């Protein structure tokens, strides 16, 4: 044991401990990732499992594909949820931060949509947003707020906004918890010092707490924008892809790769679009981090 050298011995042990994780990662992530890049240059036939090399044809095809453009644009439009989520979840965190009686009930209540299966969330909100017999239109017209039913889920301009509302509703509790943790980690001495210096409650929030929350805001912005660009479940369950103006990129990738109803399964093209999504995500995350970092330190 001593002859082998301590570090060498621990290296061997370390890789034994790491073996299951690395094996799973190599098999089910890294290998498929490499294959995914490769596949994007091929016309792949899933039945014969053979491919024909196409060069960049799959990438050029995106350029001429109007559906791809719609899907891509919608995925970017979906980013509107990010600022909405930041503002609302921060407001919720401020609302539930003080430990007043019953506050744990409210925190739990706001978190319930987070743990709820997206498929069920979609079904539930469809009952509410349905044009003819949905709860919302019935209530709005009963209260005299609208004259005719609002086509929440059938109007192609409105449906994406409707689905976004559901995304926000489902995610708020999660981001609220991030912000509660951040608010709680602000050193009390700082708050006391600000109060001693005569800061008003409003000033205390905007001048002292908010700048200190910047790392948490960055985190929420990065996480929520990555998941916004990858939105799928909501679209699948709420629209079923029937409204072509409201498909998103991941939905289109799914459809191209797997949905037999729409056409042949086109793995190569779907892979090329996936690579595109990956590049967008990387660029976006880098941009996000860069902007936020500058804002955090330069904002004083």
């Amino acid at each position, binding site marked *: 044991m001593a002859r082998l050298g301590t570090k060498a011995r621990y290296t061997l042990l370390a890789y034994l*401990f790491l073996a299951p*994780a690395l094996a799973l990662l190599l098999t089910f992530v890294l290998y498929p990732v490499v294959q995914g890049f490769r*596949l994007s240059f091929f016309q792949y036939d899933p039945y014969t*499992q053979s491919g024909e090399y196409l060069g960049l044809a799959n990438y050029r095809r995106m350029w001429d594909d109007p559906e791809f453009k719609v899907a891509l644009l919608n995925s970017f439009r979906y980013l509107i949820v990010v600022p909405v989520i930041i503002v609302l979840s921060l407001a919720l965190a401020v609302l539930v931060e003080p430990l007043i009686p019953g506050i744990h009930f409210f925190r739990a209540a706001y978190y319930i949509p987070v743990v709820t*299966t997206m498929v069920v969330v979609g*079904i539930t909100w469809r009952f509410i947003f349905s044009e003819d017999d949905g709860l919302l239109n019935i209530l709005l017209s009963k209260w005299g707020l609208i004259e005719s039913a609002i086509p929440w889920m059938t109007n192609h301009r409105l449906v994406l906004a409707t689905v976004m509302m559901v995304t926000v509703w489902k995610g708020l509790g999660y981001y609220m918890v991030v912000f509660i943790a951040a608010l709680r980690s602000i050193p009390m001495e700082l708050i006391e010092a600000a109060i001693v210096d005569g800061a008003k409650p409003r000033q205390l929030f905007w001048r002292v707490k908010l700048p200190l929350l910047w*790392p948490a805001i960055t985190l929420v912005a990065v996480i929520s924008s990555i998941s916004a660009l990858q939105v799928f479940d909501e679209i699948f*369950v709420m629209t079923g892809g029937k409204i072509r103006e409201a498909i998103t990129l991941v939905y289109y990738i799914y459809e191209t790769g797997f949905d037999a109803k729409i056409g042949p399964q086109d793995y190569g093209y779907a892979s090329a679009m*996936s690579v595109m999504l990956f590049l967008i995500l990387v660029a976006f995350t880098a941009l996000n981090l860069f902007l936020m970092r500058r804002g955090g330190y330069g904002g004083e």
Partner: protein
Amino acid sequence: MAASDRRLQLSRMHRGGGDSAERLRLAIRYTVLVLVALIMLGPFVWLMYLSVRTQGNIYAWPSDWSEFSLRSYIVVWQNFPIGSAFRNSVLVALGQVVLVVLVASLAAYPLARYDFYGREAVFLLILSTLMVPFQLYLIPLYVFVTKVLQLNNSLVGVVLPFGCSVFGIYLIRQFYATVPRDLEEAARVDGAGELRVWWQVMLPLTKPAVATLAVFTLVASWSNFLWPLIILQDEAKWTLPVALATLTGAFVDRISYLAAGSIIAIAPVIVFFLILQRWFLGGMTVGAVKG
């Protein structure tokens, strides 16, 4: 707890304005709290109502109690593949939790404790996979799992690809770093092998991290949709989200069936959350230790 009370006290003192102003502020806060709760919980209440309102116009005031019944639950459980989907979902979730917790706890140990060749490289490699969106490798993964491993229509095929949780490794590694080294050394002096040190010293001392990882994994697995949707074609193998989404069209004429199926699908996970909520609501703080 004490610290937070002090925070509350501090903000009360700070705002001043006397008792009545304080009471008004509190009343406003509770009003907003209740309004938000209505928005967050209202849809679930409506879903439950729809599931039991089996007769009459759902928007009309019921003429008597016979318009409500639990019939839809029984019909859905017996005539649609909800019962089997429920069983499949439970199996998948439990398998996923055990696998993820074991793999992550094992991997985190040397990363937190050993000085070994390639440590930084391995850790970076693991973390870098966080950047990769699932969709990028979804198709090759599908080809590999179904064509090479022949795991289509298999619950193992649902679980296996998500067995290595990078978030989990990171979380547990952070926790291991807080365990005093003396405990490990003492066990080694007593002649324990490395596996036993991990099993008998590290694992029991990091229960909060394991619990946090377990609850998040369970919920994620219960909700997982896209992957099970594409690899499970056989109705008998469907998990709950797949069964519900696929059957949406099938009983669209009976709202109460769809509502009842939905309630069946979410009840376990909500009960689970309510019992273990402190791991969810406190868990993020654990994960946020350092940057």
